[in-house]
């Protein structure tokens, strides 16, 4: 008997079943499970070999190639032999024969006045033309600055080819070992950000990516701190010196900070006027229950949030003045598990969150048009999703690889990948696109 069960278990654990774990399994009530993946519908792109053996060009090509791959907008293919002709120009005929849609050339800049200038070209192989080009000024010495510049160029290439920019020139904040870190979405550039308190929790980006807000554990309390990333200067949000102060989120215009303040009567959502450095407005009134995790709609008109008013924490929505509070995601009292960690998508169409299924948190996405809830994960513990600015990628904390770390899922293709250098991470916050000055 036991043997037969074991055999059945082994059969179930075939590679195909393992691959499909995130889209199979019993669906909780009212939940549509899985991601639709239609292969072969994406354009293919190749990054052409450099004409000269210049190390800097090779590293630029490698970063570009990875960024294009991680955009999940293309099938990135290897350049066939004979793909380039004289001076690194693409051989359209050879590329076309292999069904390549786009080719990216990285060349020494034509009128390079000095070192560190590179031209990036996007070739439309079908029409045999250069669709667009840019000159990349590579800052000398600093590897981080070079990578940031190339990420910016990769996002431009994605925009030229598909109509909307990529997400390479972004940064993800997370907490590990009680400290605050940042990492680029390709897993490079991981760096600790000196912060107040230990642990530091719930980091959030301002829309211009110049400041962050977070909860600091200090002996006297749990204040909210707003910190300038360039200078490191810090400011305590007025009123957050007392009680527990958590889940800050800047409004889309950057002028207000929504957060939850808890005291002896429960936890409620407040707005702090960042622009005027003053004035705290209360939005919810709970008595012995909690309202927390506010997340703004992109138009700044509404806030989704978590409330335990009906017992277990669930997803609600209200106007930004606190009126019209109502349940947002359908739940059945007693059978729907705790819901937490909501984040409104940058395109306004969806809210991602995690909800416990059989006592284990899984990532879900609520489609606001029809209020349908879609389960995205099913393998291990998966929590605290955060949207990329393209509205199709999410980063989240997952134990699926055997250790807790960040993963990234593309909701369009279903592709999941671990984010390198994030072991032990939690509470990720994906930045908006960096300002062009920073991206080079």
């Amino acid at each position, binding site marked *: 008997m036991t043997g037969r069960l074991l055999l059945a278990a082994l059969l179930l654990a075939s590679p195909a079943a393992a691959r499909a774990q995130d889209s199979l399994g019993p669906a909780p009530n009212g939940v549509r499970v899985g991601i639709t993946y239609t292969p072969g519908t994406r354009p293919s792109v190749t990054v052409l070999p450099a004409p000269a053996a210049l190390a800097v060009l090779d590293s630029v090509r490698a970063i570009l190639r990875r960024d294009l791959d991680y955009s999940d907008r293309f099938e990135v293919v290897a350049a066939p032999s004979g793909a380039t002709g004289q001076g690194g120009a693409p051989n359209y005929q050879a590329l076309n024969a292999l069904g390549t849609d786009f080719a990216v050339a990285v060349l020494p800049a034509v009128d390079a006045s000095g070192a560190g200038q590179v031209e990036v070209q996007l070739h439309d192989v079908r029409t045999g033309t250069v669709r667009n080009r840019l000159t990349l000024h590579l800052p000398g010495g600093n590897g981080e600055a070079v990578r940031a510049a190339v990420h910016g160029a990769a996002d431009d290439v994605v925009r030229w080819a598909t109509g909307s920019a990529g997400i390479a020139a972004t940064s993800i904040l997370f907490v590990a070992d*009680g400290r605050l870190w940042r990492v680029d979405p390709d897993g490079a550039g991981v760096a600790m950000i000196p*912060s*107040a*308190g*230990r*642990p530091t*929790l*719930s980091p959030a980006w301002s829309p211009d990516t110049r400041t962050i807000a977070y*909860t*600091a*554990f*200090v*002996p*006297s309390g*749990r*204040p909210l*701190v707003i910190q300038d990333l360039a200078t490191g200067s810090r400011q*305590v949000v*007025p*009123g957050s*010196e*007392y*009680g*527990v102060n*958590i889940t800050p989120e800047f409004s889309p215009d950057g002028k207000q900070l929504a957060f*939850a*303040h*808890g*005291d*002896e*009567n*429960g*936890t409620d959502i*407040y707005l702090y006027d960042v622009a005027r*450095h*003053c*004035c*705290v*407005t*209360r939005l*919810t*009134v709970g*008595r*012995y229950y*909690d309202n927390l*995790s506010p997340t703004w709609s992109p138009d700044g008109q509404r806030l989704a949030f*978590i409330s*335990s008013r009906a017992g*277990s*924490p669930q997803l609600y929505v209200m106007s930004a*003045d606190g*009126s019209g*509070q109502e349940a947002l995601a359908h739940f059945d009292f007693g059978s729907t598990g*705790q819901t*937490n960690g909501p984040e409104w998508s940058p395109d306004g169409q969806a809210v991602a969150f995690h909800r*416990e299924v059989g*006592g284990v948190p899984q990532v879900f996405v609520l489609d606001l048009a029809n209020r349908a809830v879609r389960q995205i994960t099913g393998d291990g513990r998966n*929590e*605290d999703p955060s949207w990329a600015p393209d509205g199709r990628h999410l980063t989240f904390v997952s134990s699926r690889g055997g250790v807790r770390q960040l993963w990234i899922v593309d909701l369009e293709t279903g592709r999941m990948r671990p984010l390198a250098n994030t072991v032990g991470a939690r*509470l990720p916050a994906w930045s908006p696109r960096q300002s062009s000055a920073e991206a080079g």
Partner: protein
Amino acid sequence: MMPRYWRVAAPALVLLAAACTPKPTPSAATPVPPPAAPSTAAADSAAAAAAAAARRDSLAAQARADSLARAALALSHADSVKTQVQGQSADTAPAATASGLSAADAATLADAIHFDYDRADVAAGDQARLDRKLAILAAHPRLAIQIAGNCDERGSTEYNLALGERRAAAAKRYLVAHGVAEGRIAIVSYGKEHPLDPGHDEGAWAKNRRDDFVVSRGAN
């Protein structure tokens, strides 16, 4: 001739006004405003009222002194938070050294209480534990404590911070309802950041869903 307290508190009031006034202190016991009611308006008007009271004659001198003292206290507390934020100090609870209690009383006072999953109400069995603390607190009126709410590893980091605050508040409410002065009890939430037992089963979780009691000011 300016009264002494006014000289001390006037700069504090000016600074408070310039800082655009934090929310009322927990001890201010303001009524719960309706949704969207700007709570700063309450704080602003409280400050304005205090200032107005200060301008009036000496009938309200005592009330004036109290409110100004509160404002100054709020400011000094805010300053200490800012100092900690700038100084990146570690999060360590005040040491309960030299509490002036017998070893038995100290142990009784420190005895943790426990909670059901996702609940913050004091279990009937734990009321007796709190009652024993009541006797010690009554016998040592200078004694002040901090109640720290904790959660198990399940549930989100952030929700557990809110839940831990409610757990600490529940024990404080019980003690205050039974005669302990509110000002002698501070509460803090550790969420799920300080598990007592690092295990991942119900046995560990049950130990971690708790309120810890720490002496923050000794009996002597």
